[in-house]
């Protein structure tokens, strides 16, 4: 197994862990963290799988940079909404999960 493929498999494991956490947990903060782990996993798949057997490739690196920006922006928005929701309702879960 090449090191690139190894990274891709680690990415798959991270994605699985993230998805598991995202579905299992009800606490919104935990779900957000799980989403971030899942995101990192998919970035590793993106870079690792594309470079397996083909050598270094700048395109997936550029894509992942863009992806990280998007992930930071979504996390920030989620945190703002989460804090506001906590202040308004005193809950850290969605109404149907309480």
């Amino acid at each position, binding site marked *: 197994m090449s090191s690139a493929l190894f990274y891709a498999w680690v990415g798959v494991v991270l994605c699985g862990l993230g998805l598991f956490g995202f579905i299992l947990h009800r606490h919104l903060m935990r779900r957000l963290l799980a989403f971030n782990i899942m995101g990192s996993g998919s970035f590793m798949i993106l870079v690792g799988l*594309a470079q397996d057997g083909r050598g270094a490739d700048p395109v997936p690196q550029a894509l992942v940079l*863009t992806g990280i920006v*998007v992930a930071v*922006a979504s996390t920030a928005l989620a945190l703002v909404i989460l804090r*506001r929701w906590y202040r*308004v309702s005193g809950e850290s879960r*969605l*109404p149907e999960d309480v």
Partner: protein
Amino acid sequence: MSVALPLPWLIVVPLGGAMASFLVPERWRVRLGLAVLPVMWLVTLAVLGDLAAHGVQVHALGGWSAPLGITLLADGLALGMVALTTLVFSLCAVHAASHAAEKGHNGEIGFLWPLLWFLVAALNSIWLSADIFNLYVGLELLGLTAVGLVALTGSAEALAAAMRYLLAALLGSLCYLLGVALLYAAGGSLALGDLGTIAGSGATARVALALMTLGLILKTALFPLHAWLPPAHGGALAPVSALLSALVVKASLYILIRLWLALDPDVATAAAANLLGALGAGAVLWGGWMAWRQTKLKYLVAYSTVAQIGYLFLFFPLVTGTSTIAGGLAWDGTLLMLISHALAKAGMFLAAGNLVLAMGSPLIADLSGISRFRPLSLFSFGLAGVSLMGLPPSGGFTAKWLLLQSALHSGQWWWVVVLIVGGLLSAAYVFKVLRHSFVEGPKRDHFNSPPMAMELAALALAAAGMGVGLAAQSPLTWMRIGSPFGVGG
């Protein structure tokens, strides 16, 4: 490759509008928005003119071509969606502006305008993108903007709806991104045009398509992944609900249609297409039933969106593995359904917003007696309802007629049953609203009166949904330019 100057401006103008809107003081935002609208129309018309004169256009941003750069593709389908966006957005903007003039400015509603412009920029970038990663970025920009718009009022209900929407949107776009990773690994290209040849028909392409489809139907709120939609669309401000239902859910469907047509038939199999069609049928039935059971007016309209999305998914079984004629009919029918639903549903949400404003309560039961006081808004609601039910001569009728012919032509009569039962369910929930409005229940003789411009915006959209049925031929001919179904084919 022709270098079309106006094309990038479809994205640059609304993006600039959004930035400028953030920077100017709040009291200027409405006026700024109304000033940028004519510019948007000029650019849209210029691009449509180019399509008529020169056919399909490809524009490489900054002169960098496909593998490294970002390419914009303007075919009939893309520009049809651009024109639809400009039309629906303009009328929603008029509605929002006259509402702001009526109420004055309060708190965070001030962020409405920058977010609306970001929404238009995101939509246009999705319609025009020709590579799957740029589509991902557009999808994320759209999702974040839409969540911001849902959360705008800041009430506990709105925040919960926004959070639920955000979680669904994030999960959906990650699934899509994983698909992008697999396709790039398999083929080494991101361009939509290359997918068919490069990705091949291997297992990787199938897994990728499955992941991307899953992510996209989650974002389109296809049954049974629709739970996030009614609170998000039903709880937002009226013009926001109108834009979300008319355009935003269509964006992920649009990407799905593009993908499905680009990939090899061995990857996009008939079995998968039938599954999507079956989910669509489930959406039509469940959405219609749930709409009829709602007690809040805007939730009824939101569940109606869940139902109407179902019709659009009948496209997949009707176009996969069927004859060219059946495929062409399904293409025309689906696009007409998309356009007429966008117009009628935007009109219906604006009319519902006016009615809610007039009665000062979100409940359908409180509508009693409103028919004598706000006949224009009620008429717009009914007119939009006619299109949703699919009665002639509305756009909804012509669209269903085309889909029905396509189903008969390809020998899949069971989709006809879905079309007919869906129409009956729509009739049931639209008449439920009308029945309550004409009942002279508790003698109530005071209703608030929203400004005339708000009522006219709703009427214009509902009437356009009706008119598109009478003049369906020319937009459909335009939207066939550059499609797999060719011009007039």
